[in-house]
């Protein structure tokens, strides 16, 4: 298929449909409205169902029902709406149901703004709702990457029986870039023999997260943790850029990573050996990438559109071996190359030439 110029939010919808998603439940919120709008137009064409729910709470519970019923389903929202969905997400994670959740982040807290931000990193990667659970979280940096990861997300969700989240921001949702839809590498997916499809010819199936006997609930938690360990072992993804001889490694994901990539080049023009480590999965966080960095690295600089969230995972991964610095903007402001360069230059003791 030839490349098409598509808006990020519409590409999300098309990628999901091409991955076999036939059900979408959502509620309007800026800046992701093109996702439900696209789905309301396209899903009926492919025999699917788009339903605008009465609230984000209802939407995520419709996702729970549809996922439990065994089909590929998704929802999409932005920060305040994702907060409302946390109850349902916890149930989905507890019941081990596969689905896709899109968060096109806007600045917070509270109603916040509608400009791009990365301030929902903790919520996305550390659990978000109640209980010990994790989503599988991708943080794409371009429309094409977002499309590729979404198409893979449904397989990952089915493979692990776990909700997958795509963490984007308004920039990624609103921008247009050329995209191509390519089928992901095949995974061996287990049959959904647990789904509620009517019990004809088999034992009945129950989708449930209640477990009143403490020992049983702990056993279930161990099972979940084991699953997360598997993800950490097998699914970490990252991009390394000019890190081979780097003395300063900047760490950034999503839209911010694109800005940081240009910063790396500008720093190198100034004689500072900078490189970029870009996490593509943020749960599991790509700890393995840190082990691949050369001994030349003297310091890290995490750059985020938040007050400093991913930087904590960077510190855990670096484990005290080097100083870890932070540079971030909040409220919907995208960090400008000049301010990142200033911080980086200070860390490295000024310009080299």
């Amino acid at each position, binding site marked *: 298929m030839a490349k098409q110029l598509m808006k990020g939010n519409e590409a999300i919808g098309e990628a999901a449909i091409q991955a076999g998603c036939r059900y979408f439940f959502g509620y309007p919120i800026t800046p992701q409205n093109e996702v439900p709008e696209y789905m309301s137009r396209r899903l009926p064409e492919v025999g699917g169902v788009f339903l605008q729910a009465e609230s984000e709470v209802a939407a995520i519970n419709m996702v729970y029902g549809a996922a439990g019923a065994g089909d590929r389903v998704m929802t999409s929202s932005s920060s305040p709406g994702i907060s409302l969905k946390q109850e349902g997400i916890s*149930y989905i994670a507890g019941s081990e149901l596969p689905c896709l959740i899109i968060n096109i982040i806007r600045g917070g807290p509270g109603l916040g703004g509608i400009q791009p931000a990365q301030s929902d990193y903790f919520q996305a990667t550390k659990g978000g709702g109640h209980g010990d659970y994790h989503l599988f979280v991708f943080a794409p940096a371009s429309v094409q990457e977002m499309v590729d990861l979404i198409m893979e997300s449904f397989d990952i969700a089915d493979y692990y029986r776990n909700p997958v989240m795509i963490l984007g921001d308004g920039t990624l949702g609103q921008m247009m870039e050329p995209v191509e839809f390519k089928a992901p590498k095949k995974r061996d997916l287990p049959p959904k023999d647990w789904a509620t499809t009517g019990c004809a010819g088999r034992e009945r199936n129950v989708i449930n997260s209640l477990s009143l006997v403490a020992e049983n609930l702990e056993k279930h938690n161990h099972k979940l943790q084991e699953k997360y360990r598997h993800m950490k072992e097998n699914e970490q993804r990252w991009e390394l850029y000019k890190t081979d001889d780097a003395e300063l490694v900047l760490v950034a994901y999503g839209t911010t990573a694109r800005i940081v990539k240009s910063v790396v080049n500008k720093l190198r023009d100034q004689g500072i050996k900078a490189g970029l480590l870009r996490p593509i999965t943020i749960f599991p966080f790509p700890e393995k990438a840190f082990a691949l960095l050369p001994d030349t690295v003297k310091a890290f600089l995490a750059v985020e559109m938040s007050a400093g969230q991913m930087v904590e995972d960077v510190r855990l991964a670096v484990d005290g071996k080097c100083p870890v610095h932070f540079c971030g903007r909040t409220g919907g402001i995208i960090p400008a190359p000049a301010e990142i360069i200033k911080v980086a230059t200070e860390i490295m003791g000024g310009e080299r030439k």
Partner: protein
Amino acid sequence: MKLVFERPSALTDKQTHYCPGCTHGIIHRLVAEAIDELGVREKAIGVASVGCSVLAYEYFNCDMQQAAHGRAPAVATGIKRVHPDKVVFTYQGDGDLASIGMAEIVHAAARGEKITVIFVNNTIYGMTGGQMAPTSLVGQKTTTSPYGRQPDHCGYPIRMSELLSTVQGAVSVARVSVHDVPNIIKAKKAIKKAFETQLSGAGFSIVEVLSTCPTNWGKTPLEALKWLEENMIPYYPLGEYRTPEEVK
């Protein structure tokens, strides 16, 4: 030997956790009998709610999903949209449906979701220990209305059947009771009719079943049945509020 009584196939053989004298057991059986008689057990998918009926997924012998508090109609919507040919029902109490789940029930009805809702109204939060419910009667003493429900402080009890019968998509709405045998027989008919409404594709169906909670009401089972008849029915009149042509 002639078999004169048996468990409906739509009930598991698990002993329920319900208190002695509680009418949930009767209502479970009526739902199961209706499912059996319509021959739909193997295409039934039930949704359990939060409250005393939280464990309903252990009792109905069909595919089940357990839902978050109040969200059963949304969960049922998701299931029914994936499997329009299946028979999807929720089983919810009054705290679940008429308080925290008010938005979900009204909007499922407004969309005309082709699901069947069994709404068990016993005017109290049973599972959490007898707190005031949206359906608690004026003057009713509960653990959070120790002086009796006072309308000037917390308003009047909500009449869900009357409310939902103003919603166009709710094509089948009935209120029944299980306080004596004639009413149990009527309740059974109403529940069966609600499932028939779903099978006909006419739209949303709900049966509100007035039920007792001897434990949290502080009454014996017999006193509780009498209290239901004397206090609840005058405020919550029984009858068919809406019946679709398809199942008349």
